[in-house]
């Protein structure tokens, strides 16, 4: 295949494997091993994006994850993903990508008119412009801004891909597989330590893939292969390619995102998750994250064709791509000379190296000169030309202090590529996330790690050591030391691989390249943050307006607030601010880096917690029957409980009414398996109950049951339920469904912290027992059919008693307790026989018309009896007395949890909200739950609110609506009329006692 800008040989791409892809609807060819960026450059495509604010034509700046400009919308439909860096997208057959932030297209973008209006789009533009009137903000300003600015489009369809997570522990985690990371990983892995090596690229090697330097006498590629093989031979190494360390949290917990199938055509590996989020706990971390080259800030430094010098070198050496035919280099340091030499070797004509330093005489410069390259010292690029592609640059001599230019004469140099280098920043992002402190290195003009706060080591460029021999040596040292600290040493230490590097001359910081006009004057723009279109003029304006803190500068100008977090812009911006404030750079400081290092897709964060796996659905042993018999389910916490069992053609209202009639007139059965059950054993069990419940337990007979209410220290009800004495020192407590775990914890906490002297053991048996509650006048007939040997007479088996018996062939506990007000038996069998119990009840009950009923009917029936539901009639601010349950609060007991609070002034107020019943004047009107209650119908707003409705139902039994409410001073208002002002009408209600049905309890005891 042929590409206009592909070298004939060299690089790590496979020229024999052609890959077809489309960009902005046009088909192109690339090679296996290309990134989208390298493939576009190989085809001579530089214009790939429009900038965020001014819609300026933008090209590809870098070759890595720091890319601020070449942001791409990848794929379409559910697979689409915005804001991806073209420099990181591995090419695959059929890839489809498009430019963002351009309309109608990247070549002709209407939004480019913003560039003409740039004088008003200055720092703080939003704050200054869209102030008044406030009412226009939501309606006009924000939608307009959102349309004009902004990046890619989020998908509208559900994500079709799979994501998962992995949790692993290791002795040493090495982040970055360049020369420092490779040697660190090998040094650590040779000790037998568990080592994870993660690198964001598809292959190991890091900067060696660009520089091609010789290590241990081997060409870079061979040396990398040798180290990979040695790593693979280590017993406990895990190498994660295409894996970005995104977050560094407390206790050496790091999250890594592995792109498992992103390099394959979509849908090619359906059995694999597309991305995997690794949660790693590492005893030691080695950060070998390398560095990022800084752009230089000069007028119109953003045209397509202006790239970082190191990136150009990467495209030439690694991808066999020549991003231009004729290049100028602009630099303040020696690294661009190495790039120039490689570019020239690949066939790019080097017009000149423009160096801002006054005199350059190091070995690299000598090599360049020997290769016939013109070196222009003490000069700078002051302007660039070219619309959608660079055509020429203007060069002028610099004044001695670098603060201006000499004369007015410019030299124009024709070129289609400008490779720039403003020095290098260590990639300290993860180090900074770990809360490590940074130090400003004056010589290298960058921030380097200073004081670590977590168990980590930095090595190589990340540590401010840029030369290859230093990287290799630091890698060995860091890996060896990290393993040693984790408890591992090697029999023979890893020798430091040999490499050579040319001595480099000092760089010359020139944070803003001067020209004949002041920064901000004229049409030239000096971009600092390419992603957010922040210029040097914006930084200077912010400084003039009083922004002295870099954190304020960041928020005011939005510098560094793009998805790239300012990887290429932060240091330039704060240096310009420092210069403007005449303050040293360390004093201005740097902004805080936060996770993630590069954006993480939401899918990876969700993992498999989607669909039916989003949350556990807890089911009872009878669940299968409920499903097969058409139950509609209600979510109660995580439980799936049958809500009602509709028959064909029945509405919910019909079904619930039928179920209610069945229980009141015949017999019904409820799956009550979800109730919490705590087995309490020990000589002090009754004492514990006495202290936790408000009523007395010591004298409860064996085999008898008692209802109890549990309060917190402040006297508010937290739970209720029936507890049964199984033996002298043995009780079974039931709790509400949703509080089962909380009550057990609550009892354990008191036992372990307050009363460790009590000899009591608690065991949760919630799930051991499954429970069917048979209720109704014919309940006795059904139970008699199931347990023929059991004497069910009221004398032998009275209300609030428990018997053990064989029911349907299964040993069972039968509790004669009731939540419906009807004769009721709760039959408990072990869970593995629960389904059998249920089906046997349905069989035995069939002649009696046994009717399965759900939670809605249960709620109606209990409300008819005025039985409370904790969490419905209570909300953590309700005492037993408020509920009219004074009778359950012992006056004799010395103490119990909550007792002291009942004598507090507030809990004994007469006007506390108290539980009452409400009967609407219109009996067919069912009040909405939560409706507010007032004394008067209407009146001047705000109308004083007395309280609110807690429960409200149609009572089939009463043939009218009923409601429970908490009303201020309600217990003294029985007989009075109150009002529920609803949106469309006012509903008058009579206040009544909160028991609507069988207040004497005749049916219960029958």
């Amino acid at each position, binding site marked *: 295949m042929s590409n206009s800008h592909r070298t004939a040989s060299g690089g790590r791409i496979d020229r024999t494997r052609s890959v077809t892809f489309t960009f902005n609807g046009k088909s192109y060819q690339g090679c296996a091993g290309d990134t989208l960026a390298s493939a576009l450059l190989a085809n001579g495509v530089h214009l790939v994006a429009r900038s965020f604010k001014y819609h300026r034509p933008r090209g590809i700046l870098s070759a890595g994850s720091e890319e601020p400009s070449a942001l791409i919308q990848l794929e379409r439909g559910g697979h689409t993903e915005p804001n991806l860096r073209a420099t990181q997208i591995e090419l695959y057959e059929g890839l489809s990508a498009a430019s963002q932030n351009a309309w109608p297209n990247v070549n002709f973008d209407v939004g480019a008119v913003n560039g003409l209006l740039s004088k008003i789009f200055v720092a703080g533009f939003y704050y200054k412009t869209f102030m008044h009137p406030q009412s226009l903000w939501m309606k006009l300003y924000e939608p307009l801004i959102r349309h004009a600015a902004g990046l890619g489009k989020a998908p509208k369809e559900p994500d079709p891909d799979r994501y*998962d997570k992995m949790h692993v522990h290791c002795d040493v985690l090495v982040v970055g597989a360049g020369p420092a990371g490779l040697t660190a990983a090998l040094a650590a892995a040779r000790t037998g330590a568990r080592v994870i090596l993660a690198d964001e690229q598809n292959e190991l090697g890091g900067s060696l893939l660009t520089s091609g330097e010789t290590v241990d006498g081997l060409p870079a590629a061979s040396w990398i292969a040798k180290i990979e093989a040695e790593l693979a031979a280590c017993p406990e190494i895990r190498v994660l390619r295409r894996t970005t360390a995104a977050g560094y949290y407390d206790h050496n917990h790091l999250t890594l995102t592995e792109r498992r199938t992103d390099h394959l055509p979509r849908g090619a590996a359906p*059995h694999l998750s597309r991305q995997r989020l690794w*949660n790693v706990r590492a005893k030691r971390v080695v950060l070998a994250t390398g560095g990022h080259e800084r752009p230089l800030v000069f007028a119109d430094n953003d045209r397509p064709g202006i790239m970082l010098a190191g990136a150009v070198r990467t495209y030439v050496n690694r991808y066999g791509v020549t991003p231009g035919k004729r290049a100028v280099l602009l630099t303040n340091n020696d690294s661009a000379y190495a790039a120039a030499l490689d570019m020239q070797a690949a066939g790019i004509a080097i017009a000149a190296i423009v160096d801002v330093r006054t005199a350059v005489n190091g070995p690299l410069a000598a090599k360049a000169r020997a290769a016939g390259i013109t070196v222009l010292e003490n000069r700078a690029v002051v302007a660039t030309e070219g619309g959608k592609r660079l055509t020429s640059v203007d060069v002028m001599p610099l004044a001695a202090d670098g603060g201006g230019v000499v004369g007015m004469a410019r030299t124009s140099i024709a070129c289609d590529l400008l490779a720039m280098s403003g020095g290098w920043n260590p990639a300290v992002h993860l180090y900074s996330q770990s809360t490590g402190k940074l130090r400003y290195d004056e010589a290298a003009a960058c921030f380097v790690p200073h004081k670590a706060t977590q168990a980590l080591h930095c090595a190589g460029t990340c540590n401010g050591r840029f030369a290859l021999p230093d990287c290799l040596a630091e890698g060995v040292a860091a890996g060896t030391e990290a393993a040693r600290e984790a408890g591992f040493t090697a029999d023979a230490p890893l020798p430091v691989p040999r490499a050579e590097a040319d001595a480099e001359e000092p760089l010359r910081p020139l944070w803003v390249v001067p020209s004949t006009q002041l920064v901000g004057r004229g049409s030239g723009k000096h971009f600092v943050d390419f992603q957010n279109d922040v210029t040097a003029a914006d930084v200077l304006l912010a400084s003039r307006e009083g922004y002295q803190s870099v954190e304020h500068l960041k928020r005011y100008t939005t510098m560094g607030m793009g998805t790239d977090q300012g990887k290429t812009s932060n240091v330039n911006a704060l240096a310009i601010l420092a210069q403007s404030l005449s303050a040293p750079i360390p004093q201005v400081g740097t902004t805080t880096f936060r996770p993630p290092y590069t954006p993480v897709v939401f899918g990876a964060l969700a993992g498999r917690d989607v669909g039916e796996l989003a949350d556990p659905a807890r089911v*009872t042993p009878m*669940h299968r029957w409920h499903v097969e018999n058409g139950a509609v389910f209600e979510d109660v916490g995580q439980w799936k409980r049958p809500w009602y069992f509709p028959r064909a053609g029945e509405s919910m209202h019909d079904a619930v009414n039928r179920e209610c009639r069945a229980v009141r007139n015949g017999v019904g059965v409820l799956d009550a398996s979800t109730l919490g059950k705590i087995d309490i054993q020990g000589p002090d069990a009754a004492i514990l109950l006495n202290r936790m419940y408000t009523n007395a337990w010591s004298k409860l007979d064996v085999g008898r049951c008692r209802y109890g209410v549990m309060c917190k220290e402040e006297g508010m009800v937290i739970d209720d339920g029936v507890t049964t004495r199984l033996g002298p020192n043995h009780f079974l407590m039931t709790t509400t469904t949703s509080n089962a775990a909380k009550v057990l914890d609550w009892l354990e906490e008191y036992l372990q912290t307050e009363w460790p002297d009590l000899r009591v053991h608690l065991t949760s048996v919630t799930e051991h027992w499954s429970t069917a509650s048979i209720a109704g006048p014919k309940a006795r007939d059904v139970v008699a059919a199931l347990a023929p040997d059991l004497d069910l007479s009221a004398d032998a088996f009275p209300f609030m008693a428990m018997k053990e018996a064989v029911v349907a062939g299964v040993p069972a506990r039968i509790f004669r307790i009731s939540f419906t007000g009807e004769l009721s038996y709760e039959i408990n069998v*072990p869970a*593995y*026989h629960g389904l059998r119990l249920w089906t046997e009840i349905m069989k035995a009950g069939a002649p009696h018309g046994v009717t399965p009923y759900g939670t809605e009917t249960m709620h109606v029936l209990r409300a008819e009896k005025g039985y409370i539901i904790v969490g419905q009639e209570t909300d953590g601010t309700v005492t037993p007395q408020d509920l009219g349950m004074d009778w359950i609060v012992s006056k004799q007991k010395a103490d119990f949890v909550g007792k002291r609070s009942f004598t507090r002034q507030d809990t004994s107020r007469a006007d506390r909200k108290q539980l009452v019943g409400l009967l609407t004047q219109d009996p067919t009107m069912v009040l909405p739950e939560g409706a507010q209650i007032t004394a008067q119908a209407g009146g001047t707003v705000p109308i004083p609110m007395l309280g609110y409705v807690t429960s409200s139902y149609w009572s089939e039994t009463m043939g009218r609506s009923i409601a429970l409410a908490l009303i201020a001073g309600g217990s003294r208002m029985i007989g009075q009329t109150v009002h529920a002002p609803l949106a469309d009408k006012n509903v008058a209600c009579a206040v009544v006692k909160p028991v609507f049905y069988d207040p004497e309890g005749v049916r219960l005891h029958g």
Partner: protein
Amino acid sequence: MANAVDLPRVGAVARFASAFAVPPDRAGGALTLVEMIPPGQINLRCDGHDPRAARAVGGVLQGLLPVNANTVQSAADVTVLWLGPDEWLILTAPGQEGAVMAQLREALTGLHAAVTDVTGNRALLRLSGPSARETLQKGCTLDLHPRGFRPGQCAQTVLARAGIILHQRDDAPTYDILPRRSFAEYVWLWLSDAMAEYNGRAISG
């Protein structure tokens, strides 16, 4: 009383489990998930450092009563998992729990102890095969590497969003996973999903 142990015990994932052939997983072995017939389960609370209690329990449980945290001791028909300094879970052959409980109560007479039948409390799922560890690591934050978790160890932990007791049985590796019974369907679905990558199959017990 009718004899209830003759009745078949219904597993917690009976709604889903159906028989499959077991293909080799991608790591070369077979990765299988099976629900075991619910074993007898007894929760024992007593002071393990009281020599009288240790002697009493040991006499019934063939000398088994692990005192090291998160360890398991097993004999032919009984497995004892350490859950806490004064708490153990005893697994017996299905139906044997009644006899064992009676012996334990007898032996512990006069001591402060609680012997509770929890046979229905938890389901027992068994995951086995070369990819079993990696399958669990997708949802369990514990260090399951052989250096961190070995056969004979157990833990009360969380798998995805459900609390479980985890017990490694052997180096296959084989894990016993005991979720609360109501969570068993969720855990089963979650494991089946996590196993798919390795060609793993969930099969009936």
